[in-house]
């Protein structure tokens, strides 16, 4: 088969790196957002426990999802046959 099958050209390699970073940018912004809400609720003394508990549930799942995707991407790329 043609060459770009397993050894991506520049543009595609860039896009792939870009998509991985996009996922992590999302995770980081979600974390920043939730941290912002926590500090806000502490500052205003407004339902601090609820805020903390909800954050503790949400954050690991987001991170896990991004982790899985990264694992898949890198796993597949690494395991491709070298030509």
């Amino acid at each position, binding site marked *: 088969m043609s060459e770009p099958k397993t050894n991506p050209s520049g543009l595609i390699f860039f896009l792939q790196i870009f998509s991985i970073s996009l996922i992590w940018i999302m995770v980081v912004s979600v974390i920043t957002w939730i941290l912002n809400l926590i500090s*806000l609720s502490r500052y*205003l003394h*407004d*339902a601090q426990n609820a805020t903390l508990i909800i954050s503790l549930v949400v954050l690991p799942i987001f991170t896990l999802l991004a982790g899985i995707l990264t694992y898949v991407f890198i796993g597949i790329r690494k395991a491709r046959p070298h030509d």
Partner: protein
Amino acid sequence: MTKWGMVIDLNKCTGCGACVNACRIENNIPNVGEEEAQKGRALDWMQIVTEYEGEYPDVRVTHIPRPCFQCDNPPCTKVCPVHATFLNEEGLVGQVYYRCIGCRFCMAACPYSAKKFNYFEPDIPESYEGIRNPDVTRRMKGVVEKCSFCHHRLSLAKDLARFENRELREEDFQPACVESCPADAMTFGDLENPDHRVATLIHSSRAFRLDEELGTDPKVYYLKKEDK
């Protein structure tokens, strides 16, 4: 701690509607026009709720003026996603028009239908120019508003008291509806200050609150209507 509250004597209230009008003028409440009012979108903060009991011809009518009850455990503030409605330390439930995103969750959560939503850009006619109250923010379309116990008057009264170097007195801060009531049915003051009339009135045997069983702890008390 101060805790502003109101007592409304249903024996005295005649349902004349003076408070509703006083509130409209005081708080720059826009006139939505007849067509919109028919659709049920009038913006009055103070509403007179009428309760009928019994069958014709033996009907008993009770008029219940209903401002926002400034609940001490307000269900409306808990659900607001953006801190646009909140309970302050003087027991007033505030509304931040410039932050509200207009989700109307607080309206759905308020058991007393006290909140109003601006369905259109409020239209205040030219002829209102002279009588608009400069102390009250004009609302924009798409936000929720409600009775504030004339909070702007409290700020003024506090400033005045500070200027004159004295304590705030009961008569310094009275909402527009209370002032305007011709039957003298409403009393307003600090529920926790024994010098204020309301503090004793709420212990009257006739005193009750609407839907008290919900645990919202409203700060507007009513004195039961009694047949004379």
